[in-house]
């Protein structure tokens, strides 16, 4: 293990396919046309001194350290900005060049503090390196001249400091913020010698537009922008590549370590999903892993009103197993079940469903994808033939028109959001369909052509109206449809959407979007060279979630936008491993690989490998488990890494269900909301403490590598294995690697996947098998997975959740950049500096009607319940719509969401709840009870006694 220092070629690679050959210092080198002399030199190991160039951003040509000489040319051009040409002869070192470089370094150091020995960058500083490389030996200007040494440090950001006294004004930070992140938070203030880096208008970082992605920190060649953790801990000594455990982008990271301690997380340049970029969560919010709230000892108790009892692993496992056995004996085989989570690795999810199927002997396994992307799985399988997005993230760089429906990439999928913005700055056109004015609608150098600000719950009407225009205005790509799709289904669909009731004009009363705008947007999407659709939970979490997914697939097929780079149907998956947990058979009706439990061939395959008889009847979905629990037939639950008590709709109903069970086993890092209802607590391992794989939204399987030992002694798969063994079904994997091998042997799309392959390739996109040994970046090329693409009519059925006199507003929910889902992790980091409570966004009109101003406490009342939040009056939401995030349990956002759900998959309708909002003085009854219950449970934890 050593510290991975990525090679920096100085300038980005040239995409040209034409090669040129030149000579550098007498060595011949052949590189793509458009490559800089600097990169060409670096490619043969000649590292020209540089400070302002780095290969993640465009060259700038400001430090002038990289001067070179070109035979027959004039002067001393900068090698970072000089493109190669055929037959060119370049010298990168000679006495004259060295004299110039020394002169430049002498200037730099004449305005730089001489405290290298106590500087956090000591040992890893490009300025220091360059002084050494050019052989600077004296600074004849002295140090009394004009300088910046007294500039004040800005420590406002919780994760990094800005020390302008060390700044060399290379603009790498400014350019990283612009080019890599797309936030444009930094500028150079002043001119000449007075030039200085300024967040916003000379503000502190925290007061500026900065979103704390850290791209500038990473780009900075000095200690000017530096992680506070490095200030505290010093430079790391080794690094290990792993994958972010937050969102579905699945960024690859170098965990830079010192012993078993993470010094910092640095996004991996070779990461194929993120190319060296990250967001504030992945890069900085890892402190939860060592937070004092982490529980590291197993615990049991008889009743949830008893104090916890700390026990040994053996006792905890045996107790849980005996309880499950007791319950099954008493209430029958189907009275217990398990939940996997999208936070788990593939191997863990696989093992939990295996435990349920093989050890419990039923199919009562489900996953939190139920509450987010289950309609994606269904809709895409039905139409295209595979339950997954069609593209790589990089594909967006080939798109001409991007249609974003019900997704908020800059908050929810930040690194992909940055990539999309980059493409938009290059000129691609954007259409946003969202009830709310998300950042993409208008931000620095990005502006949506059309914002279709529809009413929540009317996605299908809008998608049908778009389709109507495409069909009736002759915008269908007939060739594509004829060749690639099922014509009967197309004709049926065409006749359906062509009906007048689906026209933009007729839909306007539902969607509230002007017909003309819908027509123009449809034309723009349909006539794009490459049109791509990205969608998120704003599509799926509806009573017609599956219908909208199908409608989106219809649009893409009708316009020929599937099966190549730059197009496609792209679900933006919420959690890191939603895709993977679904792939792994975490559904009550499907075995791994989306194969129905009723299918005899599949079942017998699994039976032969697992050595047990498998149940042919689908098991219970999450909402069915709750219902069964309440009516007394479902009594035991093994819940790994998922917090249903906070994340599932209609909290009171969920609580009731949990309270009705006799054995709830929770395996988690913290005493989360669900654990407060648990009888057995099994301490989990954070992603830093285990080995496995995650599969991101582009079907990319990436390795998760253990960088430190598990705090509680075991990786999560080991715990599942122990439980299974105690239940009497033997498992004896010696590593996650063996689990992956078993998965690969059972899933045709995973056949070629192994840790060895991941070590070699970094990551791989499934399907990966004999036909596609290196994986499949783009799906459905030449042919759809299901053969012919299938169109399906998508009748719009208004949700039953309608506004009335009593509930006149629609509540919709979402998330923000700095917090992650239920917030169990991010709330335990300094990310709370950005978002310390959930607030209700309300339009000024609605606020005024109710006498509400920003900061007021309001009760939000729905048919299901009531909760109280502070308000934020803003025009980002439209009149009639209110909005909140759901990162804090005490917000009780799900106390008010109803148990309406998607007709096909039961995905809850989180995005539409009819509510009334009124000013109040105190918190709701639920919140007060929640408070009391939380206090009780914390005291149960405090009273936890060691096994005696």
């Amino acid at each position: 293990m050593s510290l991975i220092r990525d090679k920096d070629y100085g300038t980005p690679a040239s995409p040209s396919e034409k090669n040129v050959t030149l000579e550098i210092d007498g060595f011949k080198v052949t590189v793509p046309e458009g490559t800089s002399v600097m990169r060409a030199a670096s490619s043969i190991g000649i590292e020209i001194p540089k400070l302002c160039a780095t290969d993640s951003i465009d060259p700038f040509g400001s430090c002038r350290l990289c001067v070179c000489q070109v035979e027959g040319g004039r002067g001393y051009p900068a090698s970072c900005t000089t493109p190669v040409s055929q037959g060119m002869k370049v010298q990168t070192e000679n006495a004259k060049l060295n004299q110039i470089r020394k002169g430049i370094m002498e200037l730099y150091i004449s305005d730089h503090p001489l405290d290298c020995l106590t500087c956090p960058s000591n040992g890893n500083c490009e300025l220091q390196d360059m002084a050494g490389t050019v052989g600077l030996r004296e600074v004849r200007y002295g140090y009394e001249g004009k300088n910046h040494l007294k500039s004040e440090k800005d420590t406002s950001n919780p994760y990094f400091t800005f020390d302008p006294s060390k700044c060399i004004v290379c603009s790498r930070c400014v350019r990283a913020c612009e080019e890599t992140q797309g936030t444009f938070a930094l500028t150079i203030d002043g001119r000449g010698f007075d030039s200085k880096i300024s967040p916003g208008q000379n503000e502190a970082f925290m007061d500026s537009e900065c979103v704390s992605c850290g791209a500038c920190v990473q780009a900075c060649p000095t200690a000017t922008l530096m992680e506070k953790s490095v200030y505290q801990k010093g430079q790391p000594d080794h690094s290990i590549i792993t994958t972010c455990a937050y969102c579905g982008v699945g960024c690859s990271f170098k965990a830079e370590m010192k012993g078993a301690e993470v010094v910092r997380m640095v996004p991996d340049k070779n990461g194929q999903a993120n190319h060296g970029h990250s967001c504030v969560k992945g890069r900085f919010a890892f402190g939860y892993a060592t937070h004092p709230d982490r529980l590291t000892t197993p615990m049991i108790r008889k009743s949830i009103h008893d104090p916890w009892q700390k026990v040994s692993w053996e006792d905890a496992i045996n107790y849980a197993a005996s309880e499950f056995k007791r319950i099954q004996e008493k209430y029958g085989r189907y009275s217990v079940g398990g939940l996997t989570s999208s936070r788990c690795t593939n191997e863990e999810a696989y093992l939990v469903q295996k435990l349920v199927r093989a050890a419990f002997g039923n199919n009562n396994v489900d996953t939190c994808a139920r509450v987010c992307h289950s309609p994606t799985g269904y809709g895409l399988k039905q139409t295209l033939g595979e339950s997954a997005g069609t593209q790589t993230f990089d594909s967006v760089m080939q798109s001409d028109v991007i249609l974003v429906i019900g997704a908020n990439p800059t908050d929810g999928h930040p690194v992909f959001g940055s990539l999309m913005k980059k493409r938009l700055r290059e000129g691609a056109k954007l259409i946003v369909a969202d009830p709310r004015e998300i950042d993409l609608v208008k931000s620095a150098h990005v502006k949506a052509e059309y914002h279709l600000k529809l009413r929540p719950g009317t996605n299908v009407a809008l998608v049908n109206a778009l389709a109507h225009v495409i069909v009736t205005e002759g915008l269908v790509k007939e060739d594509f449809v004829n060749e690639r799709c099922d014509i009967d289904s197309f004709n049926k669909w065409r006749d359906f959407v062509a009906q007048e009731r689906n026209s933009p004009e007729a839909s306007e009363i539902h969607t509230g979007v002007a017909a003309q705008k819908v027509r123009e947007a449809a034309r723009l999407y349909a006539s794009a060279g490459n049109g791509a659709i990205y969608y998120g939970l704003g599509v799926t979490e509806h009573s017609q979630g599956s219908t909208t997914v199908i409608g989106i697939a219809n649009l893409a097929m009708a316009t020929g936008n599937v099966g190549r780079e730059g197009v496609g149907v792209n679900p933006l998956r919420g959690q890191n491993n939603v895709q993977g947990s679904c792939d792994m058979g975490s559904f009550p009706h499907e075995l791994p690989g989306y194969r129905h439990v009723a299918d005899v061939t599949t079942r017998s395959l699994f039976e032969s490998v697992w050595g047990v008889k498998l149940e042919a009847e689908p098991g219970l979905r999450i909402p069915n488990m709750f219902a069964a629990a309440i009516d007394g037939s479902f009594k035991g639950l093994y819940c790994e890494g998922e917090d249903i008590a906070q994340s599932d709709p209609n909290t009171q109903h969920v609580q009731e269900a949990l309270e009705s069970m006799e054995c709830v086993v929770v395996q988690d890092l913290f005493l989360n909301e669900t654990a407060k209802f648990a009888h057995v607590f099994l301490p989990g391992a954070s992603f830093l403490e285990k080995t496995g794989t995650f599969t991101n939204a582009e079907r990319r399987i990436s390795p998760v590598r253990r960088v430190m030992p598990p705090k509680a002694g075991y990786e999560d798969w080991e715990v599942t294995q122990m439980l299974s063994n105690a239940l009497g079904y033997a498992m004896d994997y010696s590593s996650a690697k063996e689990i992956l091998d078993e998965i690969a042997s059972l899933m045709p799309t995973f056949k070629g996947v192994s840790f060895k392959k991941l070590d070699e390739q970094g990551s791989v996109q499934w399907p990966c098998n004999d036909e596609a040994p290196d994986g499949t970046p783009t799906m459905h090329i030449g042919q759809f997975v299901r053969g012919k693409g299938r169109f399906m009519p998508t009748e719009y059925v208004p949700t039953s959740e309608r506004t009335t006199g009593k509930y006149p507003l629609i509540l919709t929910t979402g998330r923000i950049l700095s917090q992650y889902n239920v917030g169990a992790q991010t709330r335990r980091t300094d990310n709370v500096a950005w978002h310390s409570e959930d607030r209700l966004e309300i339009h000024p009109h609605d606020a005024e009607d109710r006498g509400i101003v920003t900061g007021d406490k309001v009760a939000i009342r729905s048919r299901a319940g009531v909760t109280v939040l502070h308000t934020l009056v803003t025009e980002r939401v439209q009149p009639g719509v209110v909005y909140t995030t759901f990162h804090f349990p005490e917000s009780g956002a799900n106390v008010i969401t109803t148990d309406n759900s998607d007709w096909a998959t039961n995905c809850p309708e989180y995005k539409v709840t009819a509510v009334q909002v009124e000013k109040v003085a105190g918190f709701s009854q639920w919140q007060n009870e929640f408070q009391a219950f939380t206090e009780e449970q914390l005291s149960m934890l405090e009273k936890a006694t060691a096994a005696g």
Partner: protein
Amino acid sequence: MSITVYVPGDSSALSLGAEKTAVAIASEAAQRGVEIDLVRNGSRGLFWLEPLVEVATPAGRIAFGPVQASDVPGLFDADFLNGGSHALSLGLTEEIEYLKKQERLTNARVGIIDPVSLEDYLAHEGYRGLQNALQLAPADIVKQVTDSGLRGRGGAAFPTGIKWNTVLNAQGGQKYIVCNADEGDSGTFSDRMIMEDDPFVLVEGMTIAGLAVGATQGYIYLRVEYPHAHKNLNAAIAAAEKAGYLGADICGSGKAFNLEVRLGAGAYVCGEETSLLESLEGKRGLVRYKPPLPAIKGLFGQPTVINNVISLASVPIILDKGGEYYRDFGVGRSRGTLPIQLAGNIKHPGLVEKAFGITLRELLYDYGGGSATGLPIKAVQVGGPLGAFVPESQFDTPLDYEAFAANWAVLGHGGVVVFDDTVDMAKMARYAMEFCAIESCGKCTPCRIGSTRGVEVLDKIIANEDRANNIALLRDLSDVMLNSSLCALGGMTPFPVLSALNHFPEDFGAE
């Protein structure tokens, strides 16, 4: 019949009282019941004679100057309207030595016509170049310009025809013509005079450039300190649009060219072409690296011709009379004429347009009349604040880009600033460094830090601190700036600094 009287409206004349003079003439004429036709022409460029009043007589225009308002009654008394003799009478304008010996090609109409009268412009051979150009294929227009030998008058002296040809051949949807009217060199004014005194010639030149390279949009990036030029350019553009010389269908040819004036950001470095383009795009005026050249990736990333005012204003006569005609003026590889601007400590400051080849000495003494103070001239700075100081020993060098380069000097934009022998050249060197430090855009290290350190080192030299070592350091610093600065601001500051040091070592403490 009414008599035509010319009182310049040019800002150099206005600053010397021309407005009051004009008012006095008008009211005096009214009082005396004399009918006159008062025309506000531009300046002839003889600044020591401004306000220079002219009267049209059958023999030609007769000049009087400098005419202050208080002189007006006397002039009427002397019957100046009919050429009566007066102490301020200068005789026929065209016969004034200073003017008579000039070769005014670019400035042919300057001071003669009413600047904003399209009629006047047309009556004085205006738009003949455009009419010819409309008959030519783009490549043939470019060829005329190439044949003329015209080199950029903004400073770098790059052949204009070659630049145009690059843009003509560049692939790109929208191409642009950008006129660099940021005229930032101290002591220069030839751009201003063209824009104030004959704006149509610039409009015509840019229109021809548009036809030549296939650009349909032009911008004049105008120094914000030039309000009169702004007004006259806008007036000329409006008149040209109205008459069909600009717009969607130029003179019925079906070809389009639109023109707009944009005001500059007020920094010297914004005159540097790439910084100017950034500024035109609404960004900070930071210098871009080259390549790509603006001709390939210029304004908004599109192929762009960017030329100085004088370069573009020289185009109409080239297209009117042919490239050969223009090329016949000048010497060596410096063809045509250069509008030289005499300023500083000089008796007769003003505009002298002459073919290349004239010597500095002729300019300084035959035209300039020696220093204003009467003391010997010690040095002249040619080519603006980044130009070298030329000592007396080199005054016989002909004005020729190559001859100047051989002396490690430049012609630049043709500004000549004169210093008599009271000047301290070490202070001038310090001034040059300080100018660089103040004007530096701050992008590149040699200029950003170097110019500030340069001032400090010169302060030590002036204060006689460790002189020999500091002079060595100054030379090393100059070498770094010269060889590695991103643009000519940092890259040419060593010209004034080192020329002062090399030609006048005694001012730096040499024994």
